[in-house]
């Protein structure tokens, strides 16, 4: 099966139903289907063959969705990336995933292939350019063999980067599994306040496959989001705790605006109970947590039930199985913390770099998440911590090593350690502690300015502290646990 055919089916059923509403712009299913076909044809004409990888950068909107679906329809593999990536990050990503093409919104003076997915008044053309990989790399048959649809570039460097390969069939299985719990249908209007580049695989595809309407893309400010929820009578809200907090703390919230909402789902980062309680008080809608894992899908949700607890991740949805295990891989009793292992439909097909097959990644069919959880006797899961070394900035993940490598490339820096620092707005943010080479001098401001040119805003260290010497172990390695950011004592 090809995922783009799910949208064709929705278009055949209800051509005039809005698929996407962005600001005042409406894109119907018929228009989206036409734009998908046009994009796929333009890509074929430009020489794109099945198995080629296309990096796609565009903001939330019809152009992004049509380009994604067009890439899938012509058998190529999409590598969606956030629109705000800095040039060096983008270059590194293209190289790591060996993308043969680069597709983004056209700028004036672009040479190469111009693709016009949409034809409405607000339509923006897109620009396709081949990369140097096209000349040197043959089609990657491993991707063709696993029926790859997209590679979710996570972030990071060769040390931490994996690139999650998802297949057409795998994503389809995920959609079916998730929707058995969510029951989203063609009458639903989804207010979608997340970057589509990060949330296409289950979420956007699920909504389009059932013929729902997605409202997204306008400025995500408290009062404007609430106005859109009211105006479009949204039935489902889908975003991060940060967005829900912005809505809950907007001036003069009228709970009437949320009357049509039946589900408000929070994902991408742990939901602080205070945010859930404040949102429910202000907007009178229960806020539910859902655990999304790129490699697995959305296996755990805190759906409405009388005994629901605010801070629970939720329960396992049908068709998934879970284990909570100790370091030896033995199941721990209910109530005790352990690593979460999952088994179910729609698992990842492979890791891309270095290439690891599903068989090599899974342990007897189980995916080891690295998340530490506790399961109570009633079957609710609670997140206790993340064993992976990742900083979650408002729902977007940052690998410390990526920021450290940028700092290490600065001539004055001998060693840099990037750690998490609590942040009221975003949950946590990166902070750096830096040791300089003897005889070199620089300031925190100068280092931050340097980082700005190399890193997306959310990856920038919120503070940089220059120290005479970083704490070290006996073997001379930096003792990370003893490193504290500026303003926080160890």
């Amino acid at each position, binding site marked *: 099966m090809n995922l783009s055919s799910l949208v064709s089916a929705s278009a055949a059923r209800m051509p005039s139903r809005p698929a996407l509403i962005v600001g005042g712009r409406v894109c119907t299913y018929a228009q989206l289907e036409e734009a998908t076909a046009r994009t796929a044809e333009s890509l074929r004409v430009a020489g794109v063959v099945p198995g080629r990888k296309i990096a796609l950068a565009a903001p939330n909107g019809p152009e992004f969705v049509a380009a994604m679906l067009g890439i899938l329809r012509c058998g190529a593999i999409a590598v969606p990336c956030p*629109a705000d990536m800095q040039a060096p990050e983008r270059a590194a990503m293209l190289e790591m995933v060996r993308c043969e093409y680069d597709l983004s919104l056209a700028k004036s003076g672009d040479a190469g292939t111009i693709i016009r997915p949409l034809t409405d008044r607000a339509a923006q053309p897109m620009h396709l350019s081949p990369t140097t990989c096209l000349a040197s790399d043959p089609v990657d048959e491993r991707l063709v063999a696993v029926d790859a649809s997209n590679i979710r570039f996570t972030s990071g460097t060769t040390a931490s980067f994996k690139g999650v390969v998802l297949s057409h069939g795998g994503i389809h299985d995920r959609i079916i599994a998730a929707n058995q719990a969510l029951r989203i249908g063609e009458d639903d209007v989804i207010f979608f306040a997340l970057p589509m580049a990060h949330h296409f695989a289950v979420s956007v595809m699920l909504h389009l496959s059932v013929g729902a309407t997605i409202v997204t*893309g306008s400025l995500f400010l408290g009062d404007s989001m609430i106005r859109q929820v009211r105006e479009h009578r949204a039935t489902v809200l889908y975003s991060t705790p940060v967005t829900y907090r912005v809505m809950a703390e907007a001036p003069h919230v009228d709970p009437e605006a949320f009357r049509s909402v039946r589900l408000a789902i929070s994902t991408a980062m742990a939901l602080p109970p205070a945010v859930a309680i404040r949102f429910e008080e202000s907007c009178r809608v229960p806020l539910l947590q859902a655990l999304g894992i790129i490699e697995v899908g959305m296996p755990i949700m805190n759906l409405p039930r009388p005994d629901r607890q605010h801070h629970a991740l939720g329960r396992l949805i049908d068709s998934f199985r879970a284990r909570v295990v100790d370091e030896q891989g033995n199941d721990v009793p209910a109530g005790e913390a352990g690593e979460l292992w999952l088994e179910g439909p729609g698992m990842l097909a492979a890791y891309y770099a270095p290439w690891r097959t599903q068989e090599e990644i899974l342990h007897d069919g189980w995916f080891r998440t690295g998340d530490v959880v506790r399961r109570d006797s009633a079957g609710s899961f609670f997140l206790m911590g993340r064993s992976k070394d990742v900083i979650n900035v408002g729902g977007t993940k940052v690998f410390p090593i990526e920021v450290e490598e940028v700092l290490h490339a600065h001539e004055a820096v001998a060693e840099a350690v990037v750690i998490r620092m609590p942040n009221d*707005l*975003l949950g946590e943010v990166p902070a750096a502690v830096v040791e300089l080479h003897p005889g070199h001098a620089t300031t925190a401001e100068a280092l931050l300015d340097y980082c700005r040119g190399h890193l997306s805003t959310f990856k920038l260290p919120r503070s940089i502290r220059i120290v005479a010497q970083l704490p070290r172990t006996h073997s001379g390695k930096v003792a990370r646990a003893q490193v504290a950011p500026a303003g926080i004592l160890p």
Partner: protein
Amino acid sequence: MSVMPEILATIRSILSRRHGMEQVADDEELLQVGLLDSVGVLSLVTEMEEAFGLRIEMEHLTEDNFHSIRAMGAMVDRLLTEGGPS
């Protein structure tokens, strides 16, 4: 009261350097442009807090304050006058 040209220039520079929004006029309506997602708005807020040395609270994240570069500038001007740099 007119917003100080330096404030507007700083905001223009943040939008162009970090958010790819080039050649945006000070009075252009940004609400329909759809270029900033939720992480984008929060990144912009963080950048503005750092650039101007002030704190932008949740209650400031409104259309009135963010619908154009000039509106953002007026908000910054007001916050700087009211609270002084933190």
